[in-house]
């Protein structure tokens, strides 16, 4: 029994550690900014939502052994496409458009996967190239920030659920992960994805359809990117062709901090999402502390290195 508990703790060290870290950062935030209240919780959730979804998109791809540099640009496309189409739509129409955008995201992701599998060009190169294409497409759809979304749709991210302390953004995120990743994780598909990322030859020999798994992982990445773009539309109320671009590198930072191995196969979905919250909270704290915001990036970078090294050290120490 105790052995089982210890193993459970050991296996979930990354998410547990990150949850503790997030809690202590929140404590720190309250300490330096005593007025911290429901409004701040909501703005944190809103700020972290697109990054958390971008991290989820990257995780789906990296767990299966790939890498996707087109996550940010695809978020931008989903953002401007939905904002442009939804500008005069009602709530029901907006939901229909959202479904369309999700389908487009899955297709765009699957295209990445197919290119990687069929052309055998390195995944970094393929997704870098498609990333440029999506970046251009986003500008073609919407030249400058504009468009819009019905209030009821925006409320999906900006409202609260029941109490003031539970922002809709958190519910949105939890639902997206539960619906998008839950069924995958629990099924043989999830095992196949992780097996492909862990050891492609062994997976192939175990009867896994490796190429299909790769395509599916990129399609899932596309799905979560599209959700991220929709979240951006809901939380900002407009479409911005450049806003999504920065999410690629931040998502990679989040998954690395979140305990996902860039070589594939190891890690989960919770860690990167928690890491997205931590990476969003740090700049906020710096503002509360009135530190020159230009230090923000320096501190964030240092934090990433420290967290990743700390994780590696913990693993090394645990091994006898």
């Amino acid at each position, binding site marked *: 029994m105790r052995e089982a508990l210890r193993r459970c703790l050991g296996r979930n060290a990354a998410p547990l550690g990150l949850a503790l870290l997030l809690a202590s950062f929140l404590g720190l935030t309250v300490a330096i900014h005593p007025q911290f209240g429901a409004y701040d919780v909501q703005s944190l959730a809103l700020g972290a939502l697109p990054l958390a979804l971008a991290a989820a998109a990257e995780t789906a791809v990296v767990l299966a052994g790939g890498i996707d540099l087109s996550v940010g640009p695809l978020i931008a496309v989903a953002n401007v496409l939905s904002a442009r189409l939804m500008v005069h739509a009602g709530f029901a129409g907006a939901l229909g458009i959202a479904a369309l955008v999700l389908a487009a995201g899955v297709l765009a992701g699957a295209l990445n996967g197919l290119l990687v599998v069929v052309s055998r060009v390195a995944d970094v190169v393929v997704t870098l190239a498609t990333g440029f294409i999506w970046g251009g497409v986003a500008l073609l759809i919407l030249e400058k920030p504009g468009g819009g979304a019905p209030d009821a749709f925006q409320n999906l991210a900006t409202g609260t659920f029941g109490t003031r302390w539970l922002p809709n953004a958190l519910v949105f995120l939890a639902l997206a992960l539960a619906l998008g990743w839950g069924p995958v994780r629990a099924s043989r598909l999830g095992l196949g994805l992780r097996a492909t990322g*862990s050891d492609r030859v062994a997976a192939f020999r175990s009867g896994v359809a490796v190429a299909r798994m790769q395509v599916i992982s990129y399609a899932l990445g596309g799905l979560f990117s599209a959700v991220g773009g929709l979240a951006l539309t809901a939380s900002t109320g407009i479409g911005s062709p450049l806003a999504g671009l920065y999410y690629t590198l931040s998502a990679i930072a989040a998954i690395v901090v979140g305990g996902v191995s860039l070589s594939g196969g190891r890690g989960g979905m919770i860690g990167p999402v928690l890491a997205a919250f931590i990476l969003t909270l740090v700049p906020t704290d710096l503002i509360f502390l009135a530190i020159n915001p230009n230090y923000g990036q320096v501190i964030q970078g240092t934090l990433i290195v420290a967290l990743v090294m700390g994780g590696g050290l913990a693993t090394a120490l645990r091994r006898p």
Partner: protein
Amino acid sequence: MEPFETGKEILLTESAVRAPPPLEARALAKRFGAVVALGAADLAVRAGEVHALMGANGAGKSTLVKMLTGALRPDSGTILIAGRPCSFASPAAAREAGVISVYQDPALVPDLTIAENLRLSGVPAGVVRGWLERFGFGALDFAAFARTLQLPTLRLVDLARALASEPLVLVLDEITAALPADLTRLVFDVVREWRGRGRSVLFISHRLAEVSMLCDRATVLRDGVAVGVVAPARGGEEEIVALMLGTRPGAGAGAPAPAQAARRTGRAEPPALEVRGLRAGALLAEVSLTVAPGEVLGLAALEGQGQEMLFACLAGLRRPEAGTILAAGRAARFRHPADAIRAGVALIPADRLHALLHQRSVRENIALPMHRRLGEWGPIAMRRERARVNEAVRRLEIDTRAEQEVRRLSGGNQQKVVIARWLAAGFRVLLCFDPTRGIDIGTKRQIYALIRALGETGAAVLMFTSELSEIALSCDRAVVLFGGRIVAEMPAAEADEERLLRAAHGLAARPEQAA
């Protein structure tokens, strides 16, 4: 060669013999580029038999197995499962058809737990545990990650998983290579029981003793062609060795080895390289050997007997766990390949990919190790460098038409560049690991001649080769490595293929009457 029938057949019912065999291959062929890996391989595994697949290194065993299990597609020929032609697009398809393989490196995904691995291939965990109990691993923790298990355990889990899917034909590829003797016995018991249920096993092994203990019939491959089917049980061992070599049993090797140059004796010089009690990793148990200046020592071994580790230790790629290495009589502790090179020990690896800078020119590749001599800090002394490089190129007859980029050279010429590098830089001991792998016959000859010439100029050469006939052609003396130990030593003149092969299979030397 007629199939060799034995009394074992009595065990099979008439109908089983007449029914189409569970697994049959007809004229399977595969080529990789210009290399024919498999010319035309025929194989039939009957119901209720353990069938061995044998052949020397490079005979095409692994290519055949990969095609039978769906990991590789044949260029031509047919595979029949229970009489029906099948073509497998993937291992999953072969599994579906009833052919399941336990590979040399276990096919368990390291980052999944055992339970997850079983779920991945859709095998009931309870049945797997039942089989594991037979091997004494009933208490194995299925929640453990596969990466945390030892190799023998992994192989048994892999075997249990294969058995649990009830295959028509179970393919065991060197299953015993990583197993201790007691587990090997348990595995054999299970295989016999499996046969008793009328199932079939294709057993691939280097170990003749195991094959004659376990197998009903054996198909022997030589140079990509199935050259015969024999019954190993009753004195078939000699016949298998003969088939593998392409000679009649007892006829000895084809041509006698060329007379070797008289060994310079009576010198007080210490050996150029001496190894005492070297141990490293799981494979290298204890190796001691010496190579005198001017001597070419050949090392023969089957795959996976520890030769890679031995060379890695000697070249400073890996630190041994025990034992000493003496270079020119001085104890050497190589922490890094640079230490070995400084002590005059140079390695020519099997994999030319790792030895050369592929996108750089022939000249740069040859000159690279010289730079620690030719004034490391100043500008490169171009003229001196060019003279030495040209000398090496001339001596080795390297075809320099494509000299701007080494990767555009043929494999043989690339290998010559690797050798030329050390000729230009200078060395005392040259370690050659399978230097002629994948090289055409003409260049091979040149490389043998070169190795001989190096010996005559006073350099010591230790050469591992997977082609046993090379030893008589280019060496002074031969040692045989088996199970991480040197099991035989002989002058090259006596190192005919048959003797080497027997020693490499761990068989004692044949009584003199046959020699």
